[in-house]
């Protein structure tokens, strides 16, 4: 196939329509998962998940390995028929449609490029399967490869491409059919850490330009943080929280989310008293702190405090205050402009994160205080699991 160079960076077929000249992404499509349940034999892999993905946004499915992310993604793609629940695109159920008719593009973790075809043939595959005219196929393949900056590699077989390049071709192949929904299953898992950030930015850029609604599966919280508009944190087949990444970090809905997204110091205690809208909590480590919480607690109730490393600060061992508690500094690691302290208070291990001023302090007895400005999450002790 002759493949003349193309200068235009515009997307696929949209080059010849006036709308393509506008920088704004075209309106995307909406994806709804409604009460989806999937079982493998006796084991429930996805247990009643209801999620909405807004047009043009990236939703990350984040959770530990085995929590059902891939299963949920494959249900949307049409490879798995759910036992209950519906998948809807723009409000219309697509459960009865085969994978190829759902308007869903998927990038597999292994990329799943056809090894006996060149990059261009891989990208052309979906268009040919849809019976598009030859001229259109050639034009769109060029545009899709250009969009992922792989136009110089059109004739190469996957084996002759690096992991990152294979991933771009896989992305071009999925996007060439102009899917309403783009599904990405751990697309960076097989890549070097150093390469990931570049590709994450690149995929986000391409996703924005295509205006395609995307679902990104990952077990890497940093990846979800950097790429997603919103993230759904999953555990054991259920969704524990759906929010913007910053909201998930600042206000985790459950102790599990607090521990899975970011680092969390767990401190047990008991509600001593109500003080206006706030609670006075007596911590088991030996301190009494005042906390705000959107949740209601009874006086005397056992609670679990999840404090971020930056919510805590080191104090001098002699500076005894009711809001601080005695501890022992095991080691301080200078991390560029910051310091990470490894501290133990009785049986409780704590991680602290502070700005560094001068040399790190020497190990020994210290006190740990909850910063007055910190808003750590407070849960009923029964939520701890």
């Amino acid at each position: 196939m002759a493949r003349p160079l193309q200068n235009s960076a515009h997307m696929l077929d949209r080059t010849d329509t006036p709308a393509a000249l506008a920088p704004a992404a075209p309106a995307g499509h909406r994806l709804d998962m409604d009460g989806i349940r999937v079982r493998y034999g006796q084991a429930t892999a996805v247990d009643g998940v209801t999620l909405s993905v807004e047009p043009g946004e990236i939703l990350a499915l984040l959770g530990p390995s085995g929590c059902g992310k891939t299963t949920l993604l494959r249900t949307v793609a049409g490879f798995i028929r759910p036992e209950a629940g519906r998948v809807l695109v723009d409000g219309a159920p697509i459960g009865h449609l085969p994978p190829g008719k759902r308007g869903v593009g998927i990038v597999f973790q292994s990329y799943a490029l056809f090894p006996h075809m060149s990059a261009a043939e891989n990208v052309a595959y979906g268009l040919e399967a849809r019976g598009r005219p030859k001229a259109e196929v050639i034009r769109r393949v060029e545009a899709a490869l250009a969009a992922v900056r792989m136009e110089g590699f059109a004739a190469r077989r996957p084996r002759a491409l690096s992991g990152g390049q294979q991933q771009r071709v896989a992305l071009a192949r999925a996007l060439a059919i102009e899917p309403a929904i783009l599904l990405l299953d751990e697309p960076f898992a097989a890549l070097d850490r150093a390469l990931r950030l570049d590709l994450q930015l690149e995929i986000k850029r391409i996703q924005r330009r295509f205006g395609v609604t995307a679902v990104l599966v990952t077990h890497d919280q940093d990846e979800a943080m950097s790429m997603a508009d919103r993230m759904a944190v999953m555990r054991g087949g259920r969704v524990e929280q759906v929010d913007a990444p910053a909201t998930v970090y600042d206000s985790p809905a459950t102790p599990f989310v607090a521990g899975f997204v970011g680092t969390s110091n767990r401190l047990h205690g008991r509600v001593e008293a109500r003080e206006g809208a706030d609670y006075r909590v007596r911590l088991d480590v030996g301190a009494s702190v005042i906390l705000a919480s959107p949740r209601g607690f009874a006086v005397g109730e056992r609670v679990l405090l999840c404090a971020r490393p930056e919510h805590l600060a080191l104090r001098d061992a002699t500076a005894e205050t009711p809001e601080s508690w005695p501890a022992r500094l095991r080691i301080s690691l200078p991390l560029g402009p910051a310091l990470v302290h490894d501290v133990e208070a009785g049986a409780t291990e704590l991680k602290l994160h502070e700005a560094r001023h001068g040399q790190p302090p020497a190990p020994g007895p210290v006190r740990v205080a909850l910063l007055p400005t910190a808003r750590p999450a407070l849960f009923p002790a029964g939520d701890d699991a």
Partner: protein
Amino acid sequence: MHRLAPADRPLALLILALAVIALLVLVGPVLIVLLTSFTTSQALRFPPPGLTLRWYAELFDPVRSAQIHKAAGNSLLVAFCTAVLSTAMATGAALAIARSRAGWARLAEGAFLAPLVLPGIAFGLAALMFFSWLRQPPSFALLVMGHAMIAAPFALRTVGASAAGLDPALLESSASLGASPWRTFRRVVLPLIMPGVASGGFLAFISSLDNVPVSLFLSSAETDMLPIRLWGMMETSLDVRVAAASGVLVAVAFLLLLLMDRAVGLVRRMAG
């Protein structure tokens, strides 16, 4: 290569001895037949008193060896049809078995491989009785079917090895991109399992070409097969053309093997 521990040395010697014996048993007779086919004597005899190409000339003489030629034609046609039929069956079975983790798949694989251990004579007799019970006279189609039963396990082995290496995500990719199952088979599955299919076809072809027991029971006057004809010639007169024909068969099989190995690495595939 790493050194053998002293304790392993007797074992290594034993293996070497067995290998040499196997080679002698395999290669020796072939060499003897090849030498005999060049004999100047009137009947099969070893060692040959002198060497000549006379028997090959006679073997290729269209008039004097007309019956051999007809049998050879039959054999080649049956072998070709057997190769196509058994490879097609084995491909379908191998793909279904590779895709399924269920118990029935293991059972089906066992059933397919059973002819490997079933004595050919028993199968040939059983097939003959079965077909006559169905009141089917011996025919070309039945002969091919019989051969295909025997040849299918070879193809199943090689296609199965290829199919097992097929990444299921490729099939899902194809389906997700809008390809029909048939298109997926043609554009993705078949090209990727082609080495296994080709070597399976080759093995089926060869196994049919020199099959005696099934042909013995299922061939008829019209479907006279080369090995049966050669056997008949041996019985009635120690005709040296039998040795010449064997020489041709060995040479053809060897050339095909070289070709196939070039194309798909058959030897590696069999070893794996």
